[in-house]
């Protein structure tokens, strides 16, 4: 580990520790609920980008994993302890991601995009059918003592984990392989990289995170409806936040999620009757005026700065 890396790591740890104190602020309820959604999207978008950033595959299956995680909790709560359910949700996510990855990672471009969309719907249909015919109203209520504060901490922990995993992957052979795959898959094959396996590992990692996030969020909703747990809007939002931030940097999704979430929050708060219309307009403005994502903006600004100082 270089000194810069150690410093960054320490700073990150300090930041997380600081954030962990947020629930103790006075009147933090609203801030906390905003932070929960920011943390949730951060984990989802970052883990999404771990896979999609280097491989350029756009997956719209986030909701499938998320919903699966939520359902594992809903079906098992009361008989199985909650921490164990989180683990089970992770395992379920991994199994699903593995099955999906093995069959689909050879699809490319838009086919993969729509495939994952179809997949999310398929999972939703199958889970609903199982629920309707086997578990019934059990698998709908998640009544626990878990408060928003605990959910926030869990998400914060997951965020730390996702960054740790991302950082470890980036320094590993796997990360290097992914960068090569993202550049040129043919070259990757010809230098001896097993690109299918590399993509699969990352897909599984992102699937596990999404499933665990779903499991963490389930107690917050109390009542799990298929149309809400498997909302396609979630998948789209994750993709969009990650892309707006920039998927090729580990911290990219974060700089997309935060301003995006705050902007949306602001619109929702200030324009309650035209929320959707203005969200759309804000969104279009972002797409047209920040074409390379926030990361792109930051990087080009840094580049200008560097060039400026060099010249001066």
């Amino acid at each position, binding site marked *: 580990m270089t000194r810069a890396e150690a410093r960054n790591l320490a700073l990150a740890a300090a930041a997380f520790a600081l954030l962990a104190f947020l629930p103790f602020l006075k009147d933090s309820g609203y801030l906390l609920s905003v932070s929960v959604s920011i943390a949730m999207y951060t984990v989802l978008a970052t883990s999404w980008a771990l896979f999609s950033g280097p491989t350029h595959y756009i997956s719209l299956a986030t909701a499938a994993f998320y919903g699966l995680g939520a359902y594992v909790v809903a079906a098992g709560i009361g008989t199985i302890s909650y921490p164990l359910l989180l683990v089970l949700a992770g395992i379920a996510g991994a199994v699903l991601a593995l099955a999906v990855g093995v069959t689909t990672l050879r699809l490319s471009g838009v086919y993969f995009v*729509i495939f994952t969309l179809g997949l999310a719907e*398929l999972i939703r249909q199958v889970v609903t*059918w199982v629920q309707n015919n086997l578990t019934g109203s059990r698998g709908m209520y998640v009544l626990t003592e878990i408060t928003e504060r605990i959910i926030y901490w869990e998400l914060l922990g997951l965020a730390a984990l996702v960054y740790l995993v991302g950082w470890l992957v980036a320094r590993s052979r796997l990360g290097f392989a992914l960068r090569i795959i993202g550049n040129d898959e043919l070259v990757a094959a010809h230098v001896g990289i097993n690109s299918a396996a590399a993509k699969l590992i990352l897909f599984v990692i992102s699937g596990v995170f999404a499933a665990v996030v779903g499991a963490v969020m389930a107690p917050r909703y109390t009542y799990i409806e298929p149309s809400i747990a498997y909302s396609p809007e979630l998948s789209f939002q994750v993709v969009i936040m990650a892309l707006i931030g920039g998927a090729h940097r580990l911290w990219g999704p974060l700089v997309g999620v935060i301003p995006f979430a705050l902007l949306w929050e602001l619109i929702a708060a200030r324009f309650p009757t035209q929320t959707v219309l203005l969200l759309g307009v804000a969104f279009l403005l972002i797409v047209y005026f920040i074409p390379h994502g926030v990361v792109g903006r930051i990087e080009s600004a840094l580049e200008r700065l560097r060039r400026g100082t060099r010249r001066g």
Partner: protein
Amino acid sequence: MDILITGILLGATYSLIAMGLTLQYGVARIMNLANGEMLVAGAFGAFWVFTAQQASPFAAALVVVPGAFALNWLIYRYLLRPLVRRAKNRGMLEVDSILATFGMSFVLVGIMLMVFGGGYFTYSYLAEPFEIFGSPFALNRVVACLVAVAISGLLYWGLNGTRTGMALRALAVDPAAAGLVAIDVPRMSAFSFALGGAVTAAGGIVLSTFLTMDASIGVVFTMKALIIVIMGGVGDVRGAIVAALILGLAETAVASLIDPGLTLAAAYLLFILVLLLRPEGLFGRRQS
């Protein structure tokens, strides 16, 4: 027999949902996530004509179809063309158009909410039994099927029998090469995008005679349309129609013979299988 006819009728419904998007995505290369909203807008038009003007909902086509054409032309010209121009490759355009049209779908939902309110809109039109081989079927669905046949026939003739159609097909295969043979690519793309929007809105009019809708239901249609278009093969109107029919038949067969609870699961399973076995879609060209 019942299953067959019901399946074909449902397939026709699906083809109405998907045909517009084939033109927009297959030819103009815009994966339009606001497509469903255009459909709902068309349906709103029909609803308004029927309830407020006491006229046949199909009369709405006189205004809605040209209106949708013009609106989509403008959308392409002023909102999408800049994206096409700045995209370095197909992948970038895909990402940009997903993002932009996603935003547009919100804007359209917002506008419809303001204009029409958030409630359900539904009315009864031609909701009578129509006997085919001794079994009753909904007349409005039969009419929808006929309209679907008419639209697809027109499109087929338009694409295969006219100069413009040839240009569009060339564009669908390879925009760069199409430009080399003196096809006005931007104009043709705008045309096909606008045409797709008009077809979608027309579909909305027909569907409103038997589906209950509200301002935010568009996304449901967008998803279905995407799946049908991809399953059929991008840029091929025939493919979309065949895929729609297959889905319609499969859903009906599963609902009648196995369990209605698994209809959509079966549809998505079928879609996934098609994609796995023929990633380029039923009628798509394999890309090298």
